[in-house]
């Protein structure tokens, strides 16, 4: 299910004040995950954005956001990728445990267990898992946090190629401390909010921004409670519910049948 992250858990900082929108991360990700190229026509989103959204071939995406304040234009870049939640809704919703949170932090996908129900897609509050509907044997596609690279002691592909150190990678506690430090030392630069620190119970990807997150394509308004808690409070009473109902129905059945039996016996004098 959802293992609470261990002390060894890794995390990533996505610092959008350093991001220059070069998209080396997108290309490195496609390279490492062997994703095919997109056949695009023009730009699919604001500015140079391509494609419009994450999809089965793009596990990470830079969003281009033109924000005009008064007469001054500004260009702020955001990044979409799996947040590798501490308590992932996708893993909790998966009926075959094909998705699970690992000790080092990544939420990994075992394609050999997937039945393609797409409950994870519905469940994810960040709208991350994507599907290749054109495939006869389709699979869920999302950022893997380069779990294989992390296990080998390397950094994820995106963190490795980012030229401006907009992407930092390390132990989760260190990354949280670093994110707080950056906000504290340059308050005019950052919105005082670490996206992913508390949302949905905390995630492994922490975003920093110079403008409010909803202006750069992030899902906002999420509660701080882990999403699985919402179903958990119902599902955990399943066995109790089962036992209670069964007992009640059995009792009712016995009572009503006794009455009808008495009636019948009374009528006919003998049972069948």
């Amino acid at each position: 299910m959802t293992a609470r992250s261990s002390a060894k858990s890794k995390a990533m900082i996505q610092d959008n004040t350093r991001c220059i929108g070069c998209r080396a991360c997108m290309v490195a990700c496609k390279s490492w995950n062997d994703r095919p190229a997109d056949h695009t026509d023009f730009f699919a989103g604001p500015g140079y954005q391509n494609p419009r959204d994450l999809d089965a071939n793009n596990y990470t995406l830079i969003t281009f956001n033109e924000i005009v304040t008064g007469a001054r234009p500004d260009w702020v870049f955001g990044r979409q990728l799996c947040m590798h939640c501490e308590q992932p809704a996708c893993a909790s919703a998966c009926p075959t445990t094909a998705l699970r949170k690992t000790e080092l932090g990544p939420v990994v996908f075992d394609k050999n267990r997937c039945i393609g129900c797409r409950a994870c897609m519905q469940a994810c509050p960040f709208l991350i898992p994507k599907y290749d509907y054109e495939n006869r044997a389709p699979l869920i596609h999302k950022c893997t946090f380069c779990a294989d690279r992390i296990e080998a002691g390397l950094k994820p592909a995106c963190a490795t190629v980012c030229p401006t150190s907009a992407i930092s990678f390390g132990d989760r506690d260190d990354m949280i401390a670093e994110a707080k430090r950056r906000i504290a030392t340059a308050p005019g630069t950052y919105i005082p909010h670490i996206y992913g620190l508390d949302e949905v119970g905390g995630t492994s990807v922490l975003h920093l921004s110079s403008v409010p997150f909803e202006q750069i394509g992030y899902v906002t308004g999420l509660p701080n409670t882990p999403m699985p808690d919402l179903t958990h409070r119902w599902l955990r009473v399943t066995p109790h519910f089962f036992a209670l109902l069964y007992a009640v129905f059995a009792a009712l059945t016995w009572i009503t049948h006794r009455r009808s039996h008495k009636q019948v016996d009374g009528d006919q004098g003998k049972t069948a």
Partner: protein
Amino acid sequence: MNWRIRLTRWDFALMAVTAVGVGLAVVRYAAGIGSVANINNAYPWGWWVGYGIMMMIALGGVGFTITGLVEVLGVHRYHSLLRPAVLMGLLCYSGAIVMLMVELGRPWMVWMILVSWAPTAALYEVGWCAFLYLNVLLFEFAMVPLEQLGWGRLVRVMRVVYMPLMLLGVTLSHLHQSSLGTLMTLIPHKVNVLWWSDLLPLLFLFSAIMVGPALAILEYLCAARWLGFEPRMDMIASLARIEAWLVGLFLIFQLGDLVARGAVDAMLSGTWFALSFWAEIGFGLALPLVLLMMPEVRQSRRALAVACGLVIAGVLLHRLNVTVIGLRVRHWETYVPSLGEIGITIGITAGAMFVFGVLARILPIHEELASTPVSERRAAAPAGALRGAPGVS
């Protein structure tokens, strides 16, 4: 068993529609879901889940509601509705399974649910419960043809375990009908405030219970018309009164939940969401409630059928609202069911109706059709699940 039935043109029509659905399913398997369906990354669940799973399983609840009414609560005057209800339940659940085989991306792996341990996943619970309940329904219904085929000894053995299994079935139904709602509690930020509730499991359970008698009444009236027997309006009318109560209570429950969650503003806003909401409440609950409260409606075959049809449509719209229409995900992505999606579900529905129609003519599903008096032990003895007819033990 009366093998010598004549297939009418309606049978052939249903077979044709089913064949179209099969053809579309073949395309789906050959060329991927995207070749027939409009579901996309923003809306991974669409018409297939909304109608084919959520609604069909809700309709399949006719099995446990009528069984509960007759067997658990002991209201035997409705016993003639029992076999049709069980058969409908069986066909609805089977239909939902067929839908699942088309809807899942990798249906050949569906057995993986049975060998996994995923107690946090609502779908896991739904899957297991539905699987077990399907077997219970099969068991319950199997006694009918088995008896007709002369397997009396087996049937007697089955009758012994009938009671605990029947109870299991009713209990399981409560669990998975509510779990369908639990499924959607996971996404409060995606579902419009008009439909998301922390009480969604109870709402779904309640609506399943509500739709059971409505479907049973509708089926009874249709069977009377198509199979040619005189419907017992007094029985049906009294069930319709119960139904009126169910609809009324559900309406209060749903509105009360909305008010408690502060959704009154949303109800009164001029959005498409509000429109769909009022259609659901108005045509699916308020109007049939009013109709069902009127004795002349309850005594009228046509009016009653319409009223029950409205309840069913209302539940369908409710389920669609919660799982599809009420979702706001990406403002640049929309979803409208494709003809392929609708074609497959219509095919499944037609197939189920066809099978029901054939079985209703082959087997003694409807007591009212029993023409020749037979020994008390046999023909009139409702099979296994259906004992307890007045005067028969």
